[in-house]
């Protein structure tokens, strides 16, 4: 069904950013605009989600050119779910950054760039054209370069160089893959590609092309052996920025993998084995990296890598149940990882450091805040009935059916290491008595009360969303069920895109 309003989330972010650019250097106005724009974006995303949930897939032919010739935007349930989650994360991060960022960074245009970044994410989720997906990837990485270097400290620039080099490499692989794909099929529309690729005789060429996409998206989503840029760059920018990056950017890679592998390159045995090996190594390296880190944000960065492996494993098994697990984990991961980095920012505000050896005693000083944080940490570890538990059930179930015992072992090791490092972090940061010799630099206590509320509120909101996912898992399972059905059988997607001729 054609609906001309599915781009509304993109336009809300675009206009917010433009108005903020017009208010250059008026940081207070920009803060109000940012929170207001994110709130409107959230409402629009909710509306879009409920429409797609009730009416099925909606499409839009940009500039009124029929598919497959024009650029198509498609809102199926996977896209709108991710748009909704992005909007929730955007709302939380924008509240947090309105108090958690230095004025200096705002003067150099933090807020407009942040909204351009969210616009790029929305666009990547909604587009139905593979070249347009590349364009939105570029929007995302250019904005993220600026966000990462904003402030210009030495450590930041060092992290940004690694980040930039790897991401440009990823874009080149992606673009080369698109070029070859266009050369063999003559189309860029993903639904059209899905039909045309079946008629191509040269299957080996398609296999090679899919490898380009695996490398491109693999760098983006930080899988083994291409992950090292992530832990060495995500601890450098301010926490509000790291929250957006950690929660959302790697997940775009996973989304793109889900999309291309369900529509264009239906995984054969080779691809499945390759993805499975990648997944297992990603889980293990991420887990072992997390074991030795003492800086909270470096620890979280390795946990991101570890948990990306869970989802890649789900894609590798490529069956309905496995995809349900992967998509559910994606939903859980976006909310929890964004929140983890916001928490890291809050801890820094409370104690002036993120080194676990120097931290301690937060529970006795701030018991209420600690309890909210505990909910998030428990969700991340996956203690039933919280949100991290449910997707693993599906992943285990499917792995047993497909006899992927190594993956099961990796899942168990990954989960246990997550439990161990989070328990260690909890005892070090919250329970341990702080060493008396350390000078505590508490930036939180002198803040006015409204600022304190604004700083804790987003963490509370995200924790509530996580609780909702965990305790109301049945609704989420229903949604992931529809999503994975659509992914396994893309005919509904193809019909929605190609069946709608405007006259």
């Amino acid at each position, binding site marked *: 069904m*054609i609906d*001309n*309003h599915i*781009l509304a989330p993109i*336009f809300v972010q*675009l*206009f917010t*950013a*433009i*108005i903020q*650019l*017009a208010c*250059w250097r008026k940081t207070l106005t920009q803060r109000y605009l940012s929170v207001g724009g994110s709130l409107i974006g959230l409402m629009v995303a909710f509306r879009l989600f409920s429409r797609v949930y009730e009416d099925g897939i909606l499409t*839009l*032919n*940009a*500039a*009124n050119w029929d598919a497959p010739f024009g650029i198509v935007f498609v809102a199926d349930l996977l896209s709108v779910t991710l748009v909704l989650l992005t909007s929730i994360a955007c709302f939380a991060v924008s509240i947090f950054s309105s108090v958690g960022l230095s004025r200096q960074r705002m003067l150099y245009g933090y807020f407009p760039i942040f909204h351009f970044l969210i616009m790029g994410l929305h666009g990547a989720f909604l587009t139905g054209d593979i070249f347009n997906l590349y364009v939105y990837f570029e929007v995302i990485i250019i904005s993220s370069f600026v966000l990462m270097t904003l402030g210009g400290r030495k450590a930041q620039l060092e992290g940004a160089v690694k980040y930039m080099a790897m991401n440009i490499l990823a874009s080149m692989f992606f673009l080369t893959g698109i070029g070859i794909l266009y050369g063999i099929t003559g189309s860029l529309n993903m639904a059209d590609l899905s039909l045309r690729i079946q008629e191509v005789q040269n299957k080996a060429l398609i296999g090679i092309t899919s490898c380009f996409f695996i490398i491109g998206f693999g760098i983006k989503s930080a899988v083994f052996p291409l992950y090292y840029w992530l832990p060495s760059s995500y601890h450098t920018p301010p926490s509000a920025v790291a929250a957006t990056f950690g929660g959302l950017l790697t997940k775009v890679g996973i989304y793109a993998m889900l999309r291309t592998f369900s529509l264009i390159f239906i995984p054969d045995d080779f691809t499945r084995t390759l993805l499975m090996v990648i997944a297992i190594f990603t889980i293990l390296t991420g887990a072992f990296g997390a074991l030795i880190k003492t800086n909270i944000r470096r620890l979280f960065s390795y946990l991101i890598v570890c948990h990306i492996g869970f989802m890649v494993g789900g894609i590798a098994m490529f069956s309905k149940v496995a995809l349900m697990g992967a998509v559910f984990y994606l939903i859980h991961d976006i909310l929890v990882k964004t929140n983890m980095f916001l928490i890291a920012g809050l801890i820094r505000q409370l104690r002036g450091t993120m080194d676990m050896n120097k931290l301690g005693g937060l529970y006795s000083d701030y018991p209420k805040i600690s309890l909210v944080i505990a909910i998030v940490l428990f969700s991340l570890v996956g203690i039933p009935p919280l949100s991290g538990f449910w997707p693993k059930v599906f992943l285990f179930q499917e792995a047993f059916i497909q006899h992927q015992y190594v993956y099961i072992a990796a899942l168990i090791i990954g989960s246990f290491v997550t439990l161990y490092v989070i328990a260690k972090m909890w005892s070090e940061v919250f329970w341990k008595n702080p060493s008396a010799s350390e000078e505590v630099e508490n930036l939180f206590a002198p803040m006015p009360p409204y600022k304190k509320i604004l700083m804790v509120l987003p963490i509370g909101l995200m924790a509530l969303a996580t609780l909702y996912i965990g305790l109301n898992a049945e609704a989420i399972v229903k949604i992931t069920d529809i999503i994975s059905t659509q992914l396994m059988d893309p005919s509904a997607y193809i019909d929605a895109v190609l069946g709608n001729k405007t006259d």
Partner: protein
Amino acid sequence: MKSAILQTATRYLLPILLLFSFFLLLRGHYYPGGGFVGGLVASIAFVLHSFANGTENTMKILRYKPLSLIPIGLGISAVSVTFPLLFGLPPMTGLWFEEPIPVIGMIGSALFFDLGVYLVVIGVVLTILFTIALND
């Protein structure tokens, strides 16, 4: 760099280059040209002026900071993209006036999109170059 030849030449080249950039902008819908190239030519005109007369003087004839062109240009483009929504058409659909306008020709929403690009390109290029020039 102070050179009498360059300064005299720039006095005539600036308006000619600006006119040429506008010509490129208008021609761009069907032929080579368009907002991006037009914007580059226009900003080169100002860069040439700053070579001949110094960056401060160029900023004086511009009056406003080039940075302020970016939101204006983006705004024009974004409005021309979303405008067709009011008529129940998908975004970016070309809307055209019925009658051609003398000299300029047919005017449609695509021209306003290009005009936005033109302003953004001038704004970005001049901001970057002036920042570098003033830091020396």
